[in-house]
């Protein structure tokens, strides 16, 4: 394993990013947002220069920088914004940028589903809850971050450790790069026909792997019981929420 100083390409941007977030977190008094934003931008450029996409195609690279940088920037804005409604909207932008990354990685269904669920349903729920809960104006805990120092340190230690590990595992030569693995055959049994990719074109060997219909077959073939169990969990959550809600005659919790 490389000693720590040799990993400066990962450690310096992580430290700068931590400094930026710490300076930008909402607090009493004035925030040093010019210095904070500068630190943040330098950190972002530093990370993006190390974690580069592998393909050499200017359009794909441009889109990667757009979506990746956009996700990180919106994420920082989300946790540093004083207004919870804006924070919810920044969260929608984080989700949209991540969906862009999914699209770049040829996962159109995942991208569309994430937009529908997160940017659609969940952000709308957040906004409703914030509107209902904040009729008296912003509370103290929105104007001031709780334990900004500890939170920043913990978050960026985790992020730095993960970036360092991924980077280190990619540096061990060509063999050590993360790669697609052939699936290990476990046992000689007749496989479930639903979980096998369907062959579309006999000559080219093209399959429908990754398409919507194969996702559907896998969901209701391999993962049928997980889906049913998730349905049970949702049933319990729904009934529980109704049972916990105050009755009209009682009026309060």
């Amino acid at each position: 394993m490389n000693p720590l100083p040799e990993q400066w390409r990962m450690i310096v941007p992580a430290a700068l990013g931590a400094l930026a977030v710490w300076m930008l977190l909402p607090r009493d008094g004035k925030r040093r947002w010019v210095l904070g934003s500068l630190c943040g931008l330098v950190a972002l450029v530093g990370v993006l220069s190390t974690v580069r996409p592998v393909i050499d195609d200017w359009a794909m690279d441009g889109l990667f920088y757009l979506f990746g940088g956009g996700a990180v920037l919106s994420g920082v804005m989300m946790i540093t914004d004083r207004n919870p409604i804006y924070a919810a909207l920044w969260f929608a932008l984080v989700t949209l940028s991540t969906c862009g990354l999914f699209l770049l990685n040829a996962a159109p269904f995942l991208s569309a589903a994430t937009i529908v669920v997160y940017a659609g349903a969940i952000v709308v729920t957040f906004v409703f809850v914030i509107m209902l809960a904040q009729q008296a104006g912003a509370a103290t805990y929105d104007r001031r971050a709780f334990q900004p120092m500890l939170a920043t340190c913990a978050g960026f230690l985790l992020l730095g450790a993960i970036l360092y590990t991924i980077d280190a595992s990619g540096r061990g030569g060509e063999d050590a790069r993360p790669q697609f693995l052939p699936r290990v055959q476990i046992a000689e049994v007749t496989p479930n026909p639903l979980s096998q990719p369907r062959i579309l074109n006999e000559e080219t060997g093209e399959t429908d792997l990754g398409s919507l219909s194969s996702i559907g077959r896998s969901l209701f073939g391999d993962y049928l019981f997980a889906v049913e169990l998730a349905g049970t969990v949702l049933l319990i959550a729904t009934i529980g929420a109704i049972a916990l809600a105050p009755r009209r005659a009682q009026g309060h919790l």
Partner: protein
Amino acid sequence: MNIVLSAIRNAVDLILPEVALLATVCMIFLAAPFLVSERGEAAPGLRHRWGWLSLIGLSVAAYLWSISEIQPVGLGPFRLDGLAWFIRGLSLASGLILVLVNWNQAEDARAGETQACLLAIIAGVNLVAAANDIVGLFVALELISIPTYIFLLMPRRDALAQESMLKYFMLSIFSSATLLFGMSYLYGLTGTTHLEGIYASLQAGQSQPMPLLVTIAAVMMIAGLAFRLTAVPFHFYAPDVFQGAPNSVAAMLSFIPKVAGFVALYRVLAVTIPSGDWSMLSLSTPLLWWLAVLTMFVGNLLALLQNDVRRMLAFSSVSHAGYMLVGFVVGDAGTKAISGYDALLFYLSVYGAMTIGTFATLAALSTSSRRVSAISDLDGLSQTRPVIAIALTFFLLSLMGMPFTAGFVGKLNLFLVAWNSGGDAGQWLAIWLAVNAAIGAWYYLRLIREMYLSDPVTEVGQEQQPAVMVAIGLCTLATMGLFMMPEWLWQAIQKV
């Protein structure tokens, strides 16, 4: 199409007890709202009917469990190996006792949903043990968490209960996210979510070039599951939640999440790799060693400082998680006859009987208007409620690990496997275990002293609650019986 239908039928055959439990849950959920009036009142005594219905559901599940047989592990979504069989029996037995403890905890109008949540949690534990896929494992863990949130707030809804529910909710979600992060790395490394596929891929050494990514997966999954074990440093919620939660919920929380956590940890980490000098386990053993030692010390030392019975028992639960982690760290090593996992399973079963029994006595002493909270509330209990005082003393002696209780056998086993596991690390672990058992004796003895040597100052509940008394009796029987005849449980554990 036939092959698909037969695959579904084969999978359902493996989880018949859970199907029975979840069917009971659905039945209660559907029927309960119709028996409560618009004003939120129900016929007096309705809770007895829900209690009996839950007992019937559990008995059907237990019958289906007793006629089930251990099957070889296949490629289906579920497995019924020895561990799944054992955990299923353990969780159904503890579920039976918990239903009895929970009998009078909620008012009539809410009793149905409360018992249904408990049954759903029991089904979740069984499914964690039966899952053959990390997706199924995660959903089963959520089937434990989500009913727990409701269960925490159902019986009582004062400020303390709300605080404890919210704390548990937030931290539980955080731990689930951490666990999912680790699982996603495991999936990325092996290319499959199927447990057998993951084992095969790890054993074939496919991820050998990327040991660091395996480390991320292991560390993140341990962090996520340590929350359920209440291992330090993921124990912060325990004292507040136990203090605010109703007694039956505290009894459940001290035991059921530990069962699920250890089983899930075993499923994802305990892959033995015959060749090669690294594995998930060898990467995570040093981490788990430190977790075990820290958990024992922090739990016991902080328990010394508590003045609230339930807070004290919460820290005691933390320290017991540490004792059980000792067994997990020892793993397949140990003495000739028993491995670390065997000792862990034995201690887990014994701990279930004694901790549920302790909380059941607290439930028997509390009334709807007043609960036992400060330790001084137990002053002179031997004069006001002598039978309960004797039972509580017995459970506390067992938690301490005194002879003539099952806790002694359990701690002795853990000590022996750790001492004989070979190497200094195991012997140090055994020494720290012994030191901590001695520290722990202090606060349990303090409680016993208050009961026998002080004069009563506060009124304790005098209501006769037959269901809770039966639960206390069953727990006493188990704690005593497992000291007299431990081989009865050993035979079941040997099947694992």
